[in-house]
């Protein structure tokens, strides 16, 4: 019984399957298909067929392939191409297929649309150096409204405005794109470019021409007085730094000022340019000195040397030893107008023992013309010592005796 049911079921199942259709009845009578077409236009493939059944259309272009269904109206079948096929330029292969057999096949050559062409452009680098050698490169790819590249030989117009001068020239595409070296000018400015195809618009392309490396320049200085008081500030500045084409160098260019003092030491200050002028400040030295100053943009430009002289602020000062409090009092220290030397000038004290061997070195600062050292706190054993005090390059020596009762 079970077997019988199974067999019956199988028979029933087979009976339900769709009968294999044959294309015997279907026949292509005629067709109406263009050989070429412009991209984007309405494209419908018409076939006249006789017999029952519904064929499909297989399409293949550069993007891929697909099968589309048509609409049948009596003996006429119409296939409307989807936008991915009708808007893509290049060959579009088609085959009309019914069941296993291909009823007809062919190629439609789709050409780029002529409405509203557009130009895709790339410009780089966007920053170039003034002069005649540096350049930026423009690449332009003209295409139609659907992004299909326009054929080789399409003519484009390049418009360029640099420093108020308008230029225009033609470009032709080759291998679907056009390119051009845009050379720098001598003047540092911003350049504007546009590229258009017939009937198109262009976006604004810009590139900047920046000043080239600076050439040699001059320097100067200014200060409030010429004394070495270790307090006032001297300002060095350059002339306007220019490149060989008379452009002022870019803001921020670093200029180093090298100062060789009379001891042969090279001091250094630096400044960055604003509108071509770099300034740098330094403190007056705290002793008489002769500075030879030059500035340079390392390895690129330099200035001639200038000389700056600093005069001594004083000739002498007094030092007193107070044995009862173990204090060494320095001062008064007077400056060039007999005024107190400004606060903060360094006072260096070196203490030597009887054999002239250094035992301590202290530094202090002048305050209202005086400085004081507490030698009791050094923890030195009682005995005779020598003190040498140095201020602004002038040294005073004084012997003193330390009696420290608190120490055992």
């Amino acid at each position, binding site marked *: 019984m079970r077997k019988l049911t199974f067999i019956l079921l199988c028979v029933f199942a087979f009976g339900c399957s769709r009968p294999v259709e044959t294309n015997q009845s279907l026949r292509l009578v005629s067709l109406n298909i263009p050989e070429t077409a412009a991209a984007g236009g309405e494209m419908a493939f018409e076939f006249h067929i006789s017999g029952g059944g519904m064929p499909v259309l297989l399409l293949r272009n550069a993007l891929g392939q697909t099968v589309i269904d048509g609409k049948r109206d009596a003996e006429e079948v119409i296939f409307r191409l989807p936008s991915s096929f009708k808007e893509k330029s290049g060959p579009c292969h088609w085959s009309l297929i019914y069941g296993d057999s291909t009823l007809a096949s062919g190629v439609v050559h789709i050409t780029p649309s002529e409405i509203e062409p557009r130009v895709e452009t790339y410009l780089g680098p966007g920053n170039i150096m003034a002069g005649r*050698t540096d350049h930026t490169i423009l690449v332009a790819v003209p295409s139609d409204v659907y992004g299909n590249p326009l054929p080789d030989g399409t003519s484009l117009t390049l418009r360029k405005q640099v420093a108020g001068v308008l230029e225009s020239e033609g470009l032709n595409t080759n291998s679907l794109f056009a390119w051009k070296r845009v050379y720098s000018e001598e003047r540092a400015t911003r350049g504007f470019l546009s590229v258009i195809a017939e009937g198109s618009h262009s976006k604004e392309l810009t590139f900047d021409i920046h000043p080239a490396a600076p050439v040699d320049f001059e320097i100067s200085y200014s200060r409030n007085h010429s004394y070495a008081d270790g307090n006032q500030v001297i300002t060095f500045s350059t002339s306007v730094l220019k490149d060989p084409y008379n452009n002022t160098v870019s803001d921020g260019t670093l200029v180093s000022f090298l100062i060789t003092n009379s001891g042969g030491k*090279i001091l250094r200050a630096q400044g960055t340019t604003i509108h071509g002028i770099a*300034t740098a400040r330094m403190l007056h030295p705290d002793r008489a000195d002769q500075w030879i100053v030059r500035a340079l943009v390392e*390895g690129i430009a330099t200035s001639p040397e200038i000389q700056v002289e600093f005069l001594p602020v004083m000739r002498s000062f007094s030092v007193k030893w107070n044995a009862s409090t173990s204090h060494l009092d320095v001062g008064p220290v007077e400056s060039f107008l007999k005024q107190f030397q*400004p606060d903060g000038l360094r006072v260096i004290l070196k203490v030597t023992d009887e054999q002239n061997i250094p035992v301590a070195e202290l530094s202090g*600062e002048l305050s209202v013309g005086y400085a004081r050292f507490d030698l009791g706190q050094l923890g030195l054993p009682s005995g005779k010592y020598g003190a040498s005090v140095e201020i602004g390059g002038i040294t005073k020596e004084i012997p003193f005796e330390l009696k420290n009762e608190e120490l055992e």
Partner: protein
Amino acid sequence: MRRSNLLLLLALFLGLAFHGSALFFTLESTYDALIHLFFADHYASQWWEPWDYRWYTGFTVMGYPPLAHQMMALFSFLGGLKFGLYSIALAAIVLFITGVYRFGLMLTGNRKVAGYTALLAVVSSTFIETLHLFGQLPSIIGISVLLHTLPEIYEWLRTGKVIKLVLAYSLIAVTVTSHHVTPIFGMVFFIFPLIGMAVMDDARDRVRNFRQITFKVFLNSFRRLFWRMVTFGMGSLALIVLCILPYWINSKENPITQVPIPHGSRDNFLEVTSSGLVFFLIPWGILLFLLPYIFYRFYSKRYLFFGLSFSMLTLLGTGGTTPLPRLLLGETAFNILTLDRFTLWATIMALPIFGEFMCRLVEGDLRDWLQSRFGSVSHRLLGGFLGGGILFMVVFSMSLGYFRPSQPQKINMLPIVNFLNQDMHNHWRYLTLGFGDQMAWLSAQTAAMTVDGNYHSARRLPELTTKAIERLENSKFRGVEGIGSLQQFLSIPEKYNLKYIFSNDKFYDPILYFCGWQRLQQLENGIMVWERLNVPPLPAIIPRDDVPRYLKLMWGIIPVLTVLIAFLLNIRLIWARVLKLKPQEEPAYLQSGVELKGFNPAIIKLNTAWAVLVLLLLCYGGYSLYLVNSAQRSPENVVKAYYDALDFKEFERAHSYLSPTRGVSLDQYMLEVAVTDGILSSYAKLDSIGVDLVSSSPNTATARIRSVWITPLETIKKTERRQVVKEEGNWYLVPEPPKRDIPSDQLFTSNVTRYYNHGRRKVTTQQTYHEDVLEQPLLEVLTARLVRNKDQYAIVGEIQNIDRVPADVTISATLYNEMDIPLSSYNAKYHIKHKLMPKEVTSFRIDFEKISWRTKDDIMPATFNPEQFDPVQLEEMPVKFNLQCAANIATTDLYKDVALQQLQLNQETIRGALFNAGVQEVTIPQILISYYDTKKELLWVDQTFVQEGIRVQRLQYFDHPFPELEVVEIISRDMKNCFVNGLPNSEISEKMFPDGRKEKGKPYLQPVSHKEFDYIKIETDHFIGNPRS
């Protein structure tokens, strides 16, 4: 019967009310809770996938049993992650109290005692600490469930009822899936003694009293119960293996390579008193006073095995105080385990005995004895003392986190989360600094990845596993290893795609700056974002370790399933009990309890003596603490106290140690403090201080102070002399004279060029338009050579920004041998000015560091030294090098207004002064010195940080010793393989300077008469801590 249940109910009520409400103020600032929250977030977002990319460049969550995390994740679907966290924490409280109750009931066989035990569990300082200070939820759940298991095991052993075995199995499974260490050690420390007790009880039933139990009787009982033990043992072993099989497989395949990370529980508690407090005094709490009683009870015959276990746990919990724990556990286990868990278990084990004592004191034989012997006052006194002690410990341990916060202030994460989600910032890795354990909470809220992480057993990068640091995030607390490890990540961030750093601690600012990082913006929650240019984004596909599907399924299903099964099994019994569906059978352990009668007076005396001793010890500890801390008792103390106050920036306290008669007012002092800046005053941490008196008299003294300061950049050793005076019985420091320097101008002007980069001019979610991408500035490598100084290889050279815009420079170099095989590669770190103005030149030096302490056998230096430099050990001689320079437009940190003045040179040192001519205060000046030979060829580059900052229009003096350069050897001068922004260096020069450069013999070089070099060049770079805009 009714009374005991009431006590349990009271305990539960109090427990939930007290802990449940305190949780909301403590749990999020504990060490561990947020880590568990992060894991929970992992399961909530990807239940079946064990790989998490967010920490440590990817790690597997199979390194930690998942149950607690998965339960949190499940609850988080109802009300968010934190809801999940608190729900599980509340469940843990209930489980703990009931668990301790059941353990007490089983151990003592007395409901009343068990009720007291439950009440004491609520207020036990060990539980408070574990929950409210450490936040170890899985550990609490593990031990609680284990405590629930014990009565079932006992029942099975005594009665042989299969249902009891099944119940025990079901609970063991839950324990295993919630915490792996608990069942393994719990087996040894809880279940073995339990088995011992069950056998003892069985033997007791066979004789008339405990005295008659001989070894033979015991052995007979042991034999009788043997197969029950084996059945249980084998079954639970199988469960331990099976339930978290993926964990075991993972441990085998990814063995923990992490070097031991120091943990306070391994310290010598007598030396490190803070660890002693946290890991010994607080968990033991009031129990300390009762130790003799506890031992006495545990060493009675019935509890003998618990006594052994308890003694062992107590001993192991003392950490490094004695060498015994190390000997017992072995070196490896000692260094991996955190030993505080032993103390936790010991104190939990002692709770029933404590409960018994309290019960006897409140209403038992002890009360009667005390009242009859000393009258009721002494009884009340003792009760008051114990009650007061318990209360004190509760308040003390709860408030510890408040007075000594272990975590930084709570950070509002939303701005950071938003920042990471903006503008594709999550396409790079990030790093947090100074977030504490809150970094886990940030990670839980974002999909962005960090190189750091907070579960160090899961680390994979050798840079981290070889360092004994907890996290990069708090590396300053781990000295040389910490900062050293952080430095490697900061110097070569491109290796880890690390671009953003969120800094909540200014301490790290200098190291970030000098490693080439720049401040991007300050978020509205005060967190500073630092970024590094020239770091590539993360690749779209990141490698990971995959595991077979069955393991993922096991990991996702079994843990929750164990809970379901245990719940269903137990709920049946609870229902039966509550609804009294069938007559209840008395559990076996209730029949074996010990009768509490006749308190041994000897133990009372002993315990009293002990308690007095403990009190005396505490008093002595307090007194010695006072002696050390009383600041003005001696000259040494006042100096130390002054420096301590400076270290913690408590300037008012520091001022109180200055001599009041020497006339520095607080206002004046604060003013002086406010104007000093620099690495020493703003970024240093006092590491050690030594004070010795050069001279002293009864009222004055001169102290020589040798201090060592840790800064993010280097260790600073300082020696200075200070005078100390005694005034009105107290010692004071004599204040230093203030700086007298007065700048010449009150107001002055300075002009600088400032830069702004729009980023994206077009607002779009797509890739930045190519017009909006700034071109990389052009650099030129002027010289580069491979040199060897002793055993250290380095590349030294000079590089110039030849573009018109400021450049941020990254230089990385690779060394090759004869066969063109790369040997080592590193980036320029401190020896370079990372930001160059147009046409500016910097010297640079690239050192080749190895990943420090790659092997465990390498000796770690004992003290902190961030400059610690480990030259890479090259197996072959490098002969060639490749130099890759990359520049990006820099718009910040372009301060150049510092001049070099008053230069003096001798054979040993360079001295000079730096003059700040601009309008920004320089916090840390850096001096970069290049050394040249007679032909003006570069030999070496060296740098130093000036310890004090330079105020505007003022001088700062510096002093730097010359390095030893006798053996510098130039190995290669070949600059063929130098590239700038990927282009050959030679082409750049030809294009920019077609007529050649204007070289006029390097006039900027300073001639020096020194035997090892002939010229030097001095350059400066400056870190500005608080830029004015």
